[in-house]
């Protein structure tokens, strides 16, 4: 017989071994919410029933850990994140290369690379400010509550980032906040958060995102402007009549025979970058999963 909600969650976790880490986190969070709500409700209605008996009754209705686990596994098997649906590739290398334009994952990754710049700057400032103020306030009485608030905000941001990663990169991430015990005193809560490597991995991610976000953004802007310039050269020279390159006040012209090459070069460069972006997106998703999802 299961004696406490914590025990149920432990058993459920064991049952879900081998499942996607994000699924496990969702399942634990759902079960905890439900069991606590049901327990409070039942104890109010029938205060004479012991907690153990009440829990027994609730679990009977909710389902044993193995029943619950199989329900999640079953549904998870049928739902795949939108963008992760693999393309069937039996086409030539060329059509696969240019087929990137029809791949939603490539566009998602491209958008993510732009957003990563903004989120990266924000995460970095948030993490630095939070850490610095928590440490310096530690001299005063309000340092600890401040640190608690900061750690909680890190958890929230990790969940939010997970939603972004799943939406744009198609990597399955948790949809529910991480399960935390509710009946802890705030000091214990702080200790629990500070001892949890998940918190520190999330902070590490916030720093890494700053560096990566900047690199992604620079890459994006550089490649985009090069590609567009190449494609634009014939039009500038023919329609506006300017030489495309200017050096020491002398305008240089590209010869007419090079126009097709320039336009093709521009398109090729951008297509290559789209392919690269898709790869980067997958790698970034894997890193996010490793750092932001507990196992």
């Amino acid at each position, binding site marked *: 017989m299961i004696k406490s909600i914590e025990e149920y969650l432990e058993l459920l976790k064991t049952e879900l071994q081998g499942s996607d880490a994000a699924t496990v986190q*969702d*399942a634990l969070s*759902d*079960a*905890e*919410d*439900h069991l*606590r*709500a*049901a327990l*409070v*409700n039942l104890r109010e209605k029938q205060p004479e029933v012991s907690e153990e008996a009440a829990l027994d009754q609730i679990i009977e*209705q*909710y*389902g044993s850990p193995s*029943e*619950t686990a199989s*329900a*999640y596994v*079953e*549904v*998870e098997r*049928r*739902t795949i*994140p*939108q963008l992760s649906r693999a393309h069937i590739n039996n086409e030539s290398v060329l059509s696969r290369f240019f087929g990137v334009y029809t791949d939603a994952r490539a566009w998602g990754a491209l958008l993510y690379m732009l957003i990563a710049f903004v989120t990266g700057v924000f995460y970095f400032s948030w993490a630095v400010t939070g850490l610095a103020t928590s440490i310096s306030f530690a001299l005063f009485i309000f340092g600890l509550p401040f640190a608690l608030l900061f750690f909680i905000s890190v958890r929230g941001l990790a969940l939010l980032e997970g939603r972004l990663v799943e939406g744009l990169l198609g990597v399955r991430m948790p*949809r*529910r*906040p991480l399960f935390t015990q*509710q009946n802890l005193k705030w000091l214990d809560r702080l200790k629990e958060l500070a001892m949890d490597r998940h918190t520190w991995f999330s902070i590490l991610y916030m720093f890494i995102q700053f560096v990566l976000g900047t690199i992604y953004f620079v890459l994006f802007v550089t490649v985009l402007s090069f590609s567009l310039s190449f494609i634009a050269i014939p039009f500038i020279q023919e329609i506006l009549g300017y030489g495309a390159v200017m050096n020491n006040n002398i305008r240089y012209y590209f010869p007419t025979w090079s126009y097709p090459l320039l336009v093709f070069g521009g398109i090729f460069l951008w297509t290559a970058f789209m392919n690269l972006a898709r790869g980067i997106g997958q790698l970034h998703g894997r890193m996010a999963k490793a750092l932001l999802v507990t196992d």
Partner: protein
Amino acid sequence: MVDSPALTRKFQKELNAGIASLVLLSVLDKTKKPMYGYQIAKLLEDYSGDASFMKQGALYPVLHSLENSALLESKVEPSVSGPPRRYYAITSEGRETLVVWQGVWKQMKSFVDKAIKGA
């Protein structure tokens, strides 16, 4: 010997796989306010009476998957007692889908009824 309770459970589970989505969408369509998981489970308990058709724990993954397909949306709100709760509401896409699904269910029901009766 045939292990009939186990077979029946398996049959029940397979039936539930599709019906749960229909039931959850219908419940959330009927109620005007968003509901949280435990509330939905309680309501279904009232509907099913003594017979329990599905474990409450099995409702949650279905809620997730409906949300993932944009048929439901959810938001977390603080509660007076205990942890914050996730409230689910049906989306307009969900309502449209529900109409289609109810049609499918009606046809399915009459088909199964005819098959059982043999008429």
